[in-house]
């Protein structure tokens, strides 16, 4: 619980123009379903958790 540190490890988005490359890998997807599936895969692979920024963008964060 103490010393919580979070880091964005990946970004999944449907709107490319909303995101600028800044360290985390960006995955461009076409529709909401693909968005969910890609984020789920990344979450399982990276042992991380997904958070919603808006309807078009999810970030995968390692805590």
């Amino acid at each position, binding site marked *: *619980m103490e010393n919580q540190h979070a880091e964005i490890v990946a970004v999944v988005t449907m709107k490319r123009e909303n995101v600028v490359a800044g360290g985390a890998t960006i995955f461009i997807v076409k529709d909401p379903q693909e968005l*969910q599936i890609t*984020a*789920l895969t990344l*979450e399982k692979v990276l042992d991380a958790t*997904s*958070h919603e920024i808006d309807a078009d963008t999810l*970030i995968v964060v390692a805590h």
Partner: protein
Amino acid sequence: MSDYLLPVVMGVVFGFSARLLLLRTDFRQYPTYPTGQIIHLSFGFIAAFIGAVATPAVLESDWTAVTFLGLAATQFREVRKMERESLQNIDAFELVKRGIPFIEGMAQAFESRNYLVMFTALITTLCAVYSFWLGIIGGIVLLLIVKFRKSGKVLQEIADVSEGEIRFEGATLFVDDILIKNVGLADTRKIITDKAVGVIVTPRNQNGIVTLSYLGQRQAMLHHIATVLGSYLDSGEPALVPMTKRDMADGRIALFMLPSEKDFHQVRAVLEQVPILDSAIRMPKEAHKGK
């Protein structure tokens, strides 16, 4: 010295009985059966012996022996260190951690119990030196004191536990009106809606508010529920990790967790019996702050 044989034996017997009374392997599965129990019973026996032989040593004016016994008694500080280390090593592999403050509390309890044993043995022997029956009575009285005075406070004495509704506003998870976190995946949101239990813990007064704000206390609450009721969790699933959040305005605590069985009554029953950690107890009500 044979005059003292019976009192010393009585002291050891009562002291050892006190340790037996204080040693409970319960749902928390600690100390583990049987190896952990053997360790603690042996320590208890040594403590009882040290306490018991102290009285004859003083009565015989054998000051060398008294000094050595005092020295031996201080060795029981090691018990705390030993417990702390082993519990910390174990804790690294728990799905829901005990937390360092809880471990510290347990380690302290183990150390203090040995001193209680020593004290029981010492007083029993002292009584038994005067008369056999006085020793028996003294021993029984001490055992009763040890049995009924040992436990600290539990959560239900300082706070009320009520059910909180798990709900989502978009991707944001709430328990009643307290924000827990943002959940991005629809899949995870469904699991949480199906399986999660939300609890609101409302402290009864100012002391309770400060005590419950302590992260160690909150972690101990989560650990208790996870140990007793199990949890729907695995390593590498940070989205499902149980959490507590505090309403900063009024000090209520919201708990979010996924027990194996979604049943609030079980969660409440467990939660009400969670011990209040020594390190969490704060009493701002008693302090002078110019009001």
